[in-house]
């Protein structure tokens, strides 16, 4: 049974390969291959789920030696347990929705065939991360995903900003990935293995230094992929890609991979308080930064992108506080809500041909499918009961609260308190930007003029996701999830929900909604005006990009220019000079110009022969 897990990355990989064949590069064939691949993948994920949930503690391993290298024997294969099974379903379902939606969204795009193949490869890479049994194998999926995001963000490759955004996404995540590789090397050399199971088993006997250094370096990779401060800068720019790609990157794949890795290696992270401190601080900063920046955006997709960084910080904060199930629950809930929001945003963009919020006033009033999706997704995101976001967010806050109280696993109490406070503040800011989004899109009056009708496949997948988001995560998940995903030893058991907590959160969210509704005169005035002159600063994410440009990019370029100059002049001349003088002395020939190479050669060969012969004679 375990070997069937291989199918999860293999099927979309096959779809990607097939789709790349010249013969399959027509639109109908490409769509058929992509949809068949995505459907089969989702079905396989669903079929594998029941047996994995039957016995959630069981791990099925299926491995093959791929890299025998002395002290390190890398066995690649599948490690399939309930965590992998549940996340695989999430990935499969969102990827299918995105593929279906894309058929309509890229209807007039000549590059659809390669796009569809790249999405298949993306899905395959994410599923490889999910089922990988070895960290180096996981890194393969991890970075192939980076490659696919690069290609897909750069889909509109004629546009300079899309190309730059693509490079930025790859490069920033690559910085994290190199750190992660080093982390794997540190842990792998200390434990003598890079196998996930063996590594986790070795955690108690790892030297403390290696454990701390290794887990901190892994965190760098997590920060890159899950867009956490200080490596979050790629994500808002990544909106240059087609909208379905934003849904894919922001919901179930890529950014989810970082959270998944922390959950996968949770015992390792829990063993190092220093790492949890750093993770908690990182999450606290990103949470607030992302939410504030989201509120200040002028662009619909960038608003959602900043919201993603902020929500991912919730998940990582929960995991830092030891809340295994809380973090994963929020991952699932957010995945469905964000995929829905992005695909709904795509409908709006498709209709008005711009991403600018100022051009979208009241648009959703004329788009019932989009409006419903935005309301369901938005309220889930804001965490208003009875939507699933309320339960997941509250369980996250409960874990943070326990950490702030200094009980159980988690960071030191100081970091725990900061994390909890940031979490509470972010609830209100999240409510604020969701309120702003809904007010703008739903405020009367509905605009006149032509609106582009969404294509059928787009409306279908949005409706399907609305139902998924609204119904299936409704109450059912919070109860079921802890029994499906038993927390590893050392983490917090289950999900702590309190009626009081949920009620207070709900009151806070509703209060923010009401305040903004009143402030904006029922939507006639953009609530962002509240920020006044600080909007620009917040919109740019507090100018971190500019800081990196001044502090890292430009200095590196200057150093590079200086090095190139030195290489061309000093070193070259020094070595050439030594070479020339050596020739002069050894050959006792007069200086010859570059044109008289043969003299050089003759001299050198004669010299070599002389040495050989003299040695032969002497010996």
């Amino acid at each position: 049974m375990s070997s069937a897990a291989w199918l999860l990355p293999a099927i979309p990989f096959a779809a990607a390969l097939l789709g790349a064949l010249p013969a399959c590069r027509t639109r109908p064939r490409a769509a058929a291959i992509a949809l068949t691949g995505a459907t089969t993948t989702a079905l396989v994920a669903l079929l594998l789920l029941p047996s994995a949930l039957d016995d959630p503690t069981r791990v099925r391993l299926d491995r093959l030696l791929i890299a025998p290298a002395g002290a390190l024997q890398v066995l690649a294969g599948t490690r399939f347990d309930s965590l992998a099974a549940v996340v695989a379903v999430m990935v499969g379902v969102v990827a299918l929705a995105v593929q279906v939606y894309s058929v309509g969204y890229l209807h007039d795009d000549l590059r659809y065939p390669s796009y569809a193949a790249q999405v298949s490869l993306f899905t395959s890479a994410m599923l490889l991360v999910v089922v990988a049994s070895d960290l180096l194998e996981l890194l393969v999926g991890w970075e192939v995903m980076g490659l696919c995001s690069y290609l897909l963000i750069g889909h509109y490759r004629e546009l300079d900003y899309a190309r730059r955004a693509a490079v930025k996404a790859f490069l920033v995540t690559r910085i994290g990935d190199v750190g992660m590789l080093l982390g794997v090397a540190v842990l792998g050399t200390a434990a003598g293995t890079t196998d996930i199971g063996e590594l986790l088993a070795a955690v108690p006997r790892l030297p403390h230094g290696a454990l701390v250094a290794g887990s901190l370096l892994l965190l760098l990779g997590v920060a890159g992929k899950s867009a956490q401060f200080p490596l979050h800068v790629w994500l808002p720019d990544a909106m240059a890609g087609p909208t379905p790609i934003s849904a894919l990157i922001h919901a179930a794949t890529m950014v989810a991979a970082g959270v998944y890795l922390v959950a996968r290696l949770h015992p390792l992270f829990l063993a190092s308080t220093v790492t949890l401190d750093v993770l908690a601080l990182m999450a606290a900063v990103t949470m607030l930064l992302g939410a504030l920046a989201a509120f200040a955006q002028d662009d619909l997709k960038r608003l959602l992108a900043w919201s993603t960084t902020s929500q991912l910080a919730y998940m990582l904060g929960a995991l830092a506080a030891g809340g295994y199930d809380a973090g994963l629950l929020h991952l699932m809930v957010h995945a469905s809500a964000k995929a829905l929001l992005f695909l709904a945003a795509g409908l709006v963009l498709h209709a008005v041909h711009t991403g600018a919020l100022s051009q979208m006033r009241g648009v959703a009033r004329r788009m019932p499918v989009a409006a419903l999706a935005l309301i369901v997704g938005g309220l889930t995101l804001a965490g208003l009961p009875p939507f699933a976001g309320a339960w997941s967010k509250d369980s996250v806050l409960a874990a943070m609260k326990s950490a702030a109280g200094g009980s159980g696993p988690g960071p030191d109490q100081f970091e725990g308190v900061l994390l909890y406070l940031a979490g509470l503040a972010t609830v209100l800011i999240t409510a604020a930007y969701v309120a702003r989004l809904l007010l703008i899109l739903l405020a009367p009056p509905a605009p006149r003029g032509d609106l582009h009708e969404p294509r059928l496949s787009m409306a279908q997948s949005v409706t399907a996701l609305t139902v998924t988001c609204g119904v299936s995560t409704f109450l059912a998940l919070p109860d079921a999830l802890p029994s499906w995903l038993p927390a590893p030893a050392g983490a917090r058991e289950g999900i702590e929900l309190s009626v009081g907590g949920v009620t207070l959160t709900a009151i806070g969210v509703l209060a923010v909604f009401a305040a903004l509704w009143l402030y904006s005169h029922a939507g006639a005035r953009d609530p962002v005006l509240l920020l006044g002159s600080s909007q620009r600063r917040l919109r740019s994410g507090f100018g971190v990009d500019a800081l990196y440009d001044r502090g890292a990019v430009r200095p590196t370029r200057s150093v590079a220019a200086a090095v190139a100059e030195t290489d061309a002049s000093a070193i070259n001349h020094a070595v050439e000079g030594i070479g020339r003088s050596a020739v002069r002395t050894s050959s006792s020939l007069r200086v010859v110009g570059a044109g008289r190479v043969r003299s050089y050669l003759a001299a050198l060969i004669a010299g070599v022969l002389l040495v050989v012969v003299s040695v032969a004679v002497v010996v």
Partner: protein
Amino acid sequence: MSGSWALPVILALPLAGALLLLLLPEVGDAIAHVVGLVVTGSVVVGVLALFGSFDIGRAGRPQLELDGDWIPAIGVRFHLGVDGISLPLVGLAALLFLLCMVHLLRHMPEPVRPRALIGLLLLLETGVLATFMALDLIVFFIAFEVVLLPMYFVIALWGGERRQHAATKFILFTLLGSVVMLVGFLVVGTHAGTFDLVELAGRRGAGMPRGVQDAAAALMILGLAVKTPVWPLHTWLPDAHTEAPTVGSVLLAGVLLKMGTYGLVRLVLPVVPQGAHDLAPALAGFAVIGIVWGSLVCLVQRDMKRLIAYSSVGHMGFVVLGIASLTTIGVQAALLANIAHGLITGLLFFLVGALKERHHSSEIAVVGEGMLGQTPYLGSLLVFAGVASLGLPGLAGFWGEALALFGAWRPAGGLPAVWFQLLVCLACLGAIITAAYFLDLLRRTAFGPVPSARRLRPVGEARVSELVAWTPLVVATVVIGLYPRIVLGLGEAAVRGVLGVSA
């Protein structure tokens, strides 16, 4: 003479081909391509047969040996053989020479003269294969030298505008390096009384005092470092690569550089282990300077050929770092990175050669944007080769460099671990810059709108003859990337042998 004649037969094929072309001035030009293809093709078949008859269970020992007296007066033996370290390199060399011949069918550089060019390349192949098969220091040296002159003429006669300067620099550097290396061999030979590598490796430096070992190791490393090249002895490389014709660049990067790192593993590690141990920290230091240095130069490079040449300095830095760790994993990683670099950089030079042929320049600005739009095959292949070269996991380039970091993070006992760990961190910095310049290169060539001037005068898409020459490299890059055991498994036992560690 005793042993198998398989290896000398393989060596004789290209040598006979070269002589045939030299002796037939009249008809030579007409049949040169046929001779080239048949000979390099037969070598590939022969090498496949080698793989077939190779006993993987005993990959740690030389197989198919041929051993006999050659110059008894100074104890030189004609000793050939292959083991798990040399066999993959023999395979890589055979493949690249065949692909170069395929490439030459439709793409002869000026001045055409196929008889001369193909004859020289066949001579070059003889030298390269003999270098990887040699089990005697003097045989190794001679084979090493045989390679120089053909490559010199290939650059000097078929090169670009500044070919004379580049060719002179190439021959000066490498010949001087060889002389220094030879002195090292002689130091070893006079102290040990033999040049036989199997014998010397078996002794593991016994009987050679530490001072002698250090001196011999220093001389040999210096000589081999020129070839590899190790910073700061790399400056011949960008010129040679930039001026050489496409086949010259491909073979330089794909095969010739490997002779340097192969020499480190084959000669220095087992013959003078104490010397290698004493010099390893310094060697690793130079290697890592090369990684960072090379990648920084690439960041501001305007010419694609020079960029790829400098990227080789960085890649070979990872190889040398792995070797200098003196660990099984590090040396195995180095050998794998060697093969991967040969495949990927070979492909890159083929691609840039194709671009140069179309644009008459390899300047990034001249090549221009929009390759994916106008020439999707060329563009996609450039993207593939670029991300392979920056070490994307899942492709061949990843494993060697990643495992080299593993090896260097915990170097062999007695080496300064903190120093090596510092170097690993710097090497990681180099890996990030490598990603930066390759992505920048792709942004400015593969992506972007097709320039309006080019819409009117389209650039030719990759031809079948080109795709035939490139496809094997793409396939091998993917296969080794997904299943590196193909190479690692061959080398494991032999690497333990050269390091003198038991399984």
